[in-house]
């Protein structure tokens, strides 16, 4: 069903809801397209007319600064008209359903919705009910997926480490509640990394996680041993209340990425984080700001990757020059 929903009859990407179901080829096409957009951000005039006249609505039912901003910049660099809507809880408290909100905005002739929602499956539900000329990009739904984050992380890894086939990658932190982790796992599995590990206490590992094709580790020292890429996840502070972890201090001691723990990874390992970081909770500042960190480049690449996804979805072609005017 995922494939049918994300692709049109000609097999072109119509929505981006999840990385699950995307082939290695489609992912590489997105990464290659993103590569060609990197230079746009480095020019003096950071704009190309690819999506001129198109209307993009950033529809955020859950607050976000980084993701929303990078989507906005990406759309503007493609010359689209962008509207940001932070719906929050206000719309639902007025009794308007999610679909009503979408239908109203659709009536204003929106071409693309970038949707973030606190419930898993929200983007799928919307994609199922919009007319075929309207596109949806999932900017994060509950614990389910954050596909552009997974793609930009893959992009970052390729830029800094090269071929995926030789890499050992560890994802560390709150796997259970993380949409980022799910999308990272699906992207890296599709791209064929040599080994993919997840590292967390059992309280933060989902049931049957190995069915996602990863090796679970509960001890950070073992999980980081010899890896080429360390992908840290943000830990929500409210997890302390749910009896999932005892204290920030104990979590940092066991799972915080310190220079000493990073030393167990390969010497030239890179450190990633989707942001925003909790310094001193999941990551030590010395690592976050250290020479192995690629956390800020991730943000920069995020714009190019989101431009690529928008261009491919709305232009229907891998080549930016061949896109619709």
């Amino acid at each position, binding site marked *: *069903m*995922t494939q049918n929903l994300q692709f049109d009859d000609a097999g072109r990407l119509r929505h981006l809801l999840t990385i699950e179901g995307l082939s290695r080829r489609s992912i590489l096409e997105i990464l290659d397209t993103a590569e060609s957009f990197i230079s746009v951000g480095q020019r003096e005039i950071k704009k190309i007319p690819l999506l001129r006249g198109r209307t993009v609505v950033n529809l955020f039912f859950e607050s976000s600064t980084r993701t929303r901003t990078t989507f906005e910049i990406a759309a503007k660099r493609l010359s689209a008209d962008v509207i940001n809507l932070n719906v929050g809880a206000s719309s639902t408290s007025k009794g308007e359903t999610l679909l009503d909100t979408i239908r109203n905005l659709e009536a204003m002739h929106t071409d693309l919705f970038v949707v973030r929602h606190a*419930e*898993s*499956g929200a983007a799928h*539900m919307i994609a199922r009910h919009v007319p075929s000329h309207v596109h949806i990009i999932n900017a994060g739904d509950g614990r389910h997926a954050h596909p552009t984050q997974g793609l930009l992380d893959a992009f970052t890894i390729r830029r800094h480490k090269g071929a995926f086939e030789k890499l050992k990658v560890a994802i560390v932190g709150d796997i259970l509640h993380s*949409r980022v982790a799910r999308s990272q796992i699906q992207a890296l599995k599709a791209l064929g990394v040599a080994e993919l590990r997840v590292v967390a206490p059992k309280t933060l590992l*989902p*049931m049957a996680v190995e069915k*996602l094709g990863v090796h679970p580790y509960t001890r950070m020292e073992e999980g980081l041993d010899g890896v080429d890429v360390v992908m840290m996840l943000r830990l929500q502070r409210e997890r302390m209340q749910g009896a999932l972890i005892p204290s920030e201090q104990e979590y940092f001691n066991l799972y915080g990425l310190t220079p000493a723990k990073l030393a167990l990874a390969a010497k030239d390992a890179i450190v990633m984080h989707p942001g925003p970081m909790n310094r001193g909770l999941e990551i030590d500042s010395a690592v976050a700001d250290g020479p192995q960190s690629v956390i800020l480049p991730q943000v920069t690449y995020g714009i190019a990757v989101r431009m690529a996804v928008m261009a491919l979805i709305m232009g229907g072609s891998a080549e930016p020059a061949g896109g619709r005017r």
Partner: protein
Amino acid sequence: MGLVIKNGRLIDPANGVDGRKDLYIDDNGFVIGVGKAPPGFKAKQTIDARGKVVCPGLVDLRARLREPGLEHMATIESEVHAAVAAGITTLCCPPDTYPVIDTPAMAQMIQSRAWRFELAFIHPLGALTQGLEGKRLTDMEALDEAGCVGFTNALAPITDTLVMRRAMEYAATLELTVFLHAEDPWLRDGGCVHEGEIGTRLGLAGIPEAAETVGVARDLALIEQTGCRAHFCNLSSGRAVAMIAEAKRQGLPVSADVTAHHLHLTEHDIGDFNTQCHVHPPLRGMRDRKGLRKALKSGVISAICSDHQPHEPDAKLAPFAQSGPGISALETLLPLTLRLVDDKLLTLPEAIALLTHKPAEIIGVDTGQLGVGATADVCIFDPEAHWVLTENSLVSRGHNTPFLGWEFRGRVTHTLIGGKLVFEL
């Protein structure tokens, strides 16, 4: 003077009948002859059931009719029509209506509403605690007098174990049956799917199998101590039915049911957030479905019910966790059960027993059988009719079902209530 159903294959498991026998019904709606016309019988009306199966009207232990309180989803009137179209002649209605069935007046109101339509009989289940709040007991004797056939807190958990113990002791005093939805509310937490592969893939909060087994273990310990007769509703896991099997071996007065959909679907049917598969308890894994089927065959589970929960269309047009749980299931109860015969799990008489006299025994009513003297609640179905479930074919107000588009074999052609033909295809 009366009605005869001729030439059908009469299957009446309670009376050990399976064969080509005509059924004779008098004007008062009682069975007066099986296989042989009583002296002086003259048929005013004849139903030719050639090629069809004639069996007792089906008894559904759990169907929510949404009235009173949620009439925008369905009404007693709409759902009793759906019931008879599905061959169901007796329904049990859980007490979680608005207001709750915790007073004799409410119990009587629901029955009298149903009687007005002269279609399926509705037996209310009374609330075990007032307002289903899990604190104070209801007037069980008065509710029993008012027609309640069992007592339950429905899906509202009784978290206070002492209240549960007292409720069971009191029910045992009056020799009433307690219907249990065994689930540990803390382990359930905010879950909406089975805690397993699919929940992990889709990022949906899971309900662990242990939520059910911990609930069953607690309730079994209290049943053992209080001697209360108890019926476990809606079991979903293989481990829980194994615990019930063990309790039965030890001689505890327990029975159990399962929904037709849990016998056919698993968590994998959720696919990409198919909200039609959002049910409670959740669809679990293949191993669980196998365990439930095995328990059905061995007799540990003695009834299949619909757990009918009609919804308005908007209820399912929401992100998965926020969608309304439940299936509009009256009209798939018999077809899904007949599939178990096709799957070679059950014989046809075994399948019919699980929909008729066995559930009737659990609620202590004498329907579900067609011996001489029985009320002639009859279901006639064509076991070879192939048909596809579509929104148009549904009689229920609720169109929320994951089985749209499924092809079934076996379709109800006639339903009689008290000897009166109330549905004909």
